């Protein structure tokens, strides 16, 4: 089938008109406009621009909610596209929007967290440097993220993808005066860039295969078997490489912990709830394609299983509370990716949805703590439950949700993933499902353990820091409570068997199976027991200190050191990639630059100079100037002689005149 015909067919798909869903392009546009308003007029506006950012996010949030309820009320999803431009009449690039349940869910996540983070920041960032620019960047980020999820084709999605990347770079390096912060920003940008190259080539590969960038069309073609084979597998893996970079999957996860150098609200918005799930979003959007792309989904599953386990272990040994949460985020992203890897599409999106709320809550809570004790390190905290009761309560709610204790949000979504993995493993639909299942269970235990550790070290015991910590202001505490309530409730949307989430988010061939005693009773109870076991062990180790964990003297010391050094991955990257590039390659490049490039440049320059000199001395000086000066000299010389003729004596002139007349007369007379 000709691609052009298909594309035209798509352009005409207008399912329903007159709904709020039609206006969904406004949702990314408003924060985008807010970005410019804040950028140009922010300093003169009330609140130095934060009111504009918050206002735009609030309107976007309301629009998203209304459109979402329209969808829930039975309206059809909307897909629209306009021809952006054509190349040679053959390649047509489209500019389009797609608004279905998945987009609506993402819209709600992004606008809610963005709104709350911006409100929170009025307290947290009060009086900080570049306050206005901070809000401008937040608005631009929100716009890019919304643009990413509304895109109906991969190229457009890529625009949003890069947009969130660059905003992440700006915001990580917000305090760029300190070198580690700007280094972290560069590291985040470059590391994700490695993945982005993969994504870009994946998009090209898909275009070469299918001749279209349209997402639903690509999925459709893959399902029909019109595209397939090794080419499709390679293309899917390249797309997945982009997701690995963006969603901080092993081995490109190293940027996310360093990204904690940014302000904490930024970590909550970008590095917990929204941007890092862009990779999950991408794989989920292209899920049908991935399913038909040979071993691609198995690779996804294995990478994700490695990621979740590795990051969960790392979260156990961090002292910096934000780094604990960062590794936890990597681990949870691994969970979502693993869910996709075993074909649990709905569970992955559901976990994305719930995770956004409780992880944003945890980050904002940690921000509140950091704001109070002026340190990121848990060794400077302790006993904060007495000083910061609101933060304490909300943080514990978030932790329990993350640990998967019933009936908080994380319980439902995590359970769904574990159940789906086990189902896929026992039914043999996915070869990698056993690996995913085992690592998911172990990770669930580790998650409970490290969150217990974080909570006990932060809120119990004696205060070990300096000064007097106090509860944060209302602007900080209010968003915490909103998110805490969400963390308690959103899980019920996806309650097994009867939940509505499974009806909203679904792909063909993965309809949710009915009630099953084992999967819906035994497994959840088991997983809660695992979580409680983790918390209990955490209580023993970090609260009671018994068994004492003087791990450096235990037989596990080498293991501990191995983990504490983040598996030496940073060192491998530094020694294996950065240093060789920096020293050897850069020296070669320098030599080439100096000798060859500069040689050519300098050579041509000195050649030009020599030519110019010769030209100057021979042609300009010798010929042109000689002629000019010679003419002048000749004139001056002849003038010098001839001026003696000009005596000023009228009678002598007259004599010459008469003599001349006489001569002429004589000549005429003679001839």
């Amino acid at each position, binding site marked *: 089938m000709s691609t052009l015909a298909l594309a035209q067919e798509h352009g005409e798909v207008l399912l329903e008109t007159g709904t709020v869903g039609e206006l969904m392009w406004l949702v990314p546009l408003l924060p985008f406009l807010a970005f410019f308003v804040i950028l140009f007029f922010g300093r003169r506006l009330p609140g130095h621009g934060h009111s504009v950012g918050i206002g735009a996010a609030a309107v976007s949030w309301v629009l998203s909610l209304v459109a979402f309820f329209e969808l829930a009320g039975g309206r059809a999803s909307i897909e629209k596209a306009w021809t952006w431009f054509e190349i040679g009449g053959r390649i047509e690039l489209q500019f389009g929007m797609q608004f279905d349940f998945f987009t609506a869910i993402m819209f709600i996540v992004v606008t809610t967290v963005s709104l709350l983070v911006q409100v929170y920041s009025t307290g947290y960032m009060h009086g900080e440097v570049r306050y206005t620019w901070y809000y401008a960047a937040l608005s631009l980020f929100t716009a890019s993220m919304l643009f990413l999820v509304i895109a109906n084709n991969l190229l457009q999605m890529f625009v949003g993808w890069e947009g969130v990347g660059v905003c992440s770079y700006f915001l990580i390096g917000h305090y760029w005066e300190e070198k580690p912060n700007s280094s972290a920003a560069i590291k985040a940008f470059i590391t994700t860039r490695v993945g982005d190259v993969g994504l870009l080539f994946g998009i090209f590969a898909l275009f070469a295969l299918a001749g279209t960038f349209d997402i639903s069309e690509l999925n459709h073609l893959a399902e029909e078997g019109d595209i397939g084979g090794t080419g499709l597998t390679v293309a899917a893996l390249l797309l997945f490489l982009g997701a690995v970079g963006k969603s901080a999957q092993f081995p490109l996860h190293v940027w996310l912990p360093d990204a904690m150098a940014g302000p904490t609200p930024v970590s909550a918005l970008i590095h917990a709830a929204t941007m890092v799930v862009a990779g999950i979003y991408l794989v989920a959007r292209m899920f049908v394609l991935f399913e038909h792309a040979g071993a691609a989904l198995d690779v996804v599953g294995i990478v994700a299983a490695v990621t979740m386990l590795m990051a969960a272990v790392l979260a156990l040994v961090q002292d910096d509370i934000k780094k604990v949460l960062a590794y936890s985020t990597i681990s949870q992203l691994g969970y979502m990716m693993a869910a996709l890897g075993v074909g649990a599409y709905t569970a992955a999106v559901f976990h994305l949805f719930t995770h956004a709320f409780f992880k944003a809550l945890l980050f904002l809570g940690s921000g509140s703590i950091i704001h109070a004790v002026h340190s990121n390190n848990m060794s400077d905290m302790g006993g904060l439950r007495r000083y910061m009761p609101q933060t304490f309560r909300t943080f514990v709610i978030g932790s329990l949700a993350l640990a998967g204790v019933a009936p908080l949000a994380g319980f439902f979504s995590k359970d769904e993933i574990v159940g789906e993995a086990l189902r896929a493993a026992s039914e043999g639909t996915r070869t990698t499902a056993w690996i995913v299942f085992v690592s998911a269970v172990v990770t669930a235990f580790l998650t409970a353990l490290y969150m217990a550790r974080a909570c006990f070290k932060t809120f119990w015991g004696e205060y070990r820091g300096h000064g007097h910590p106090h509860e944060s202001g209302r602007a900080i505490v209010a968003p915490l409570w909103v998110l805490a309530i969400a963390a308690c409730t959103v899980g019920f949307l996806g309650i097994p068997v009867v939940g509505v989430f499974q009806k909203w988010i679904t792909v063909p061939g993965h309809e949710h199976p009915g009630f099953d005693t084992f999967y819906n009773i035994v497994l959840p109870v088991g997983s809660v027991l695992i979580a409680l076991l983790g918390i209990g062990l955490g209580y023993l180790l970090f609260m009671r200190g018994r068994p004492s964990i003087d791990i450096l003297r235990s037989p596990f010391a080498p293991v501990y050191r191995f983990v504490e050094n983040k598996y030496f991955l940073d060192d491998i990257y530094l020694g294996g990639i950065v240093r060789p590039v920096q020293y050897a390659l850069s020296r070669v490049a320098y030599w080439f630059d100096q000798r060859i490039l500069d040689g050519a440049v300098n050579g041509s320059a000195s050649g030009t100079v020599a030519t110019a000199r010769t030209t100057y001395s021979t042609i300009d000086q010798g010929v042109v100037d000689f002629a000019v000066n010679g003419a002048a000299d000749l004139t001056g010389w002849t003038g010098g002689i001839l001026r*003696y003729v000009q005596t*000023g*004596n009228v*009678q002598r002139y007259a004599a010459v005149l008469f003599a001349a007349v006489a001569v002429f007369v004589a000549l005429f007379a003679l001839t």
Partner: protein
Amino acid sequence: MPVSFFLVLSALLFAIGVYGVLARQHAVMVLLAIELMLNAVNINLVAFSALLGEAGVSGQVFALFVIAVAAAEVGVGLAIVILIFRNRQSIDVDELSLMKW
């Protein structure tokens, strides 16, 4: 009388005029010498007019023009001479050599 008599007279008169213009130092005398040359020309014109009879009337007319122009010329010339005398207390032509190198 043959016309050659008039031509000789005219030539002599003209030569005297040229001598006067070139040799005299007094500006008024130079102007007078110019008058001599003009009148030499007038004699020529009138002589040929007489010789040609009816057809030579234009010679006489031309002589009248010359007399009129000569009068104007002398008027202007004397005015210049007076002004020069007022400025320099001298009308020696040899000393009027300001416009040289």
